[in-house]
């Protein structure tokens, strides 16, 4: 009887330790691989390390889009602060001035280097933070 119980305890402990180990590995992966979302003012305040991957969301400033060869430069704003962005490639069909944009990339030498620009299927899309502020104003 005692032997059976001891065996069961060991089994239980092994399963517990293994699953705890597994879950902490997954959580570790989650925490190291997640992309934080910022608006331009939040990003400038947060002092992000250069080269650290983040998501930046805001509105494309009117009249700021400039195209040179395959590069696209523009300003992204949250109506308080603005950040210059550079992107190499073809922008999504819904990318235009005075509309919402979300980008994945990193901040380097005062310029946000966008690696991906996300196309939203809804042409009236705005990052949630901005639409909240706009409606409260």
């Amino acid at each position, binding site marked *: 009887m005692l032997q059976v119980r001891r065996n069961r305890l060991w089994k239980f402990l092994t399963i517990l330790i293994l699953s705890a180990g*597994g879950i902490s590995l*997954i*959580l570790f*992966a*989650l925490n190291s*691989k*997640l*992309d*934080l*979302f910022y608006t331009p003012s939040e990003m400038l305040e947060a002092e992000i390390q250069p080269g650290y991957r983040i*998501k930046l969301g805001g509105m494309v400033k009117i009249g700021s889009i400039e*195209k*040179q*060869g*395959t590069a696209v430069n523009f300003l992204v704003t949250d109506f308080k602060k603005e950040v210059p962005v550079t992107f*190499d*490639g*073809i*922008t999504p*069909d*819904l990318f235009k001035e005075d509309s919402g944009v979300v980008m*994945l990339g990193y901040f380097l030498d005062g310029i946000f280097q966008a690696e991906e620009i996300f*196309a*939203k*299927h809804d*042409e009236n899309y705005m990052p*949630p*933070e901005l639409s909240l502020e706009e409606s409260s104003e």
Partner: protein
Amino acid sequence: MIGEIAHFLSLSASALLCMVLIFNLFFAFAEEHANQLILSLKLFNQACWLIFISFGMYVYLAIIDDFSIAYIANHSNSQLPIFYKVTSIWSAHEGSMFLWIVFLTLWSIFFINFLKKDHPLKKLTLLILSLIILGFLLFLLLTSNPFERILPFGALEGADINPVLQDPALAIHPPMLYLGYVGFVVAFSFITAFLLHGNFQLQWEQDIRKWSFVAWIFLTVGITLGSWWAYYELGWGGYWFWDPVENVALMPWLAATAFMHSLFASSKSNILKTWTMFLGILIFALSLFGAFIVRSGIIDSVHSFANDPERGLYLLSFSGLITLLALGIFAYRLPQLNSSKLVVTGSKESFLSMNNILMMTAIFSIFLGVTYPLIIESMSGEKVSIGPPYYNTIFSPLILITSFFIMISVEALWQRSLPIRAVAYSVLPTIFFASISVYIIWIYTQIFSMLAYVGIFSGLLIFYSYFFRTINNFFKKRYINKGSAIAHMGLGLLFFSVSMNSILSYEKNINLFSGQSERINESIQEFMFKDIKVYPASNHEVISAEVFILQDQKKIFLNPQKRQYMTRGQITSETAIHATPLKDTYLTIGDQLENGSWTFSLKINYFVKWIWLSSALMVLGISIAMFKKKLT
């Protein structure tokens, strides 16, 4: 008028289902009456038929352009071809939910009528199916009524379907996917009925095997079609984005795959029975979770429908209720279910259960990846997103270990320990393929990628194991499980081609004036932008570029386009793809710059065809396995 009749029929169907439930719950625990089941079945069948007829009328309304129905007015247009008028029904929430319910009903009516007349589980299964259909029908009618009229006057013209959805692959992608999702209602209801019934001598595996296999096939085809559509229509050159909505489709797929495997062990030797039941319940629960994620709009994704807390709350409560009930009964019966047989270490079952555990880990990780941003946001208010890097990190070790178990299990036997020589046999191929993979990575990439390495190695290993075994058994005239071999070779090919795709593919952005040409690299000797044309088409205006490419001494002409749709003013890009067995030349046109030149994005994507092929192989393998008489 037809709209009202269709609406009334749906309401009557829910009333009939209510009657089935009330009638049975009042008499279920009293003495069994002979006609009780016959009557319930009749009512149930009539309810199902009412739903079908109601949907048929709805399709008719869409075809005749009845724009007094709000949903049709918002999503269809009189200019559309009839095919897209019909498919516009499932282009948004209300209509697609209707289709979802129609499929749910379809699976239920088929299954319940195919079940033997005096099957002891028939009545309970019928009740569970009625409850589920009723719950979703009420959800449709109460929170998202597709029959709603625009009063007093209807719209003159419809608002049109989103142009990116006007595509044959996307038109059949949702029906396939839904057929897969709801198909697992069969396994769910039957297992729950078995647990409720309490006679554990009954066999249930054979009755739901084929149904689950068919559902799996639909799910796989549905996911593949979606991925294929994204590849050629969205113009990003990718086929899988780890988007939350893709993830919620992958979870039931993984659970269903694990379920099919353990179903073999369960019916063969009575072990893993409880585990199989748990999986059977889990698949449908995950499908419902998926419906909740997509339809509540809780997660921002390209697929999600409009944000509606009321719908989300209803779906979450009802799905949660069903799942908790099933799991509750399962937990209650668990002590009585424990089989005395133990899994023999080194037997086929042992490897199978190891891979089951790994698939559960994968499901759990995806689940965390989908819900973690929500958890973080509600706790700290910080907005985060989980992208491909997380899934890549999680999946490389899982795939590696899985492939080892798959390789060894090819040699393993049911219920007997593995002979040592089988392990010895696998040492050589492992070393061989590990070195080949290192070699491939070494030649083609600058940066070592763990995931690509693992993918190539595992893919080759799995493919080789089954291929070798099949050839070997064929010559020795021994039994080959063809279905399993083909499906697993498909899996190996999938790992291999996805990894090769990720290391070989590259892209180049090009900026040229009309008539100008450029040399890209060794393989693409010339890229010439010949001309650009603008012309009107039926409901849109086309900007079409003519591009000539000299690639590997072959002449290729491509016509990437941009379309501006008149009704919505929306712009879409049409990718031009030149496909060879090994690689796709994939070209999209960008914008015109102020100086008059145009930008292009050229992507060379390797092994994309092979990814679709591997999915087709898996479907073929499972189809073969399905038509076998018995589980072997």
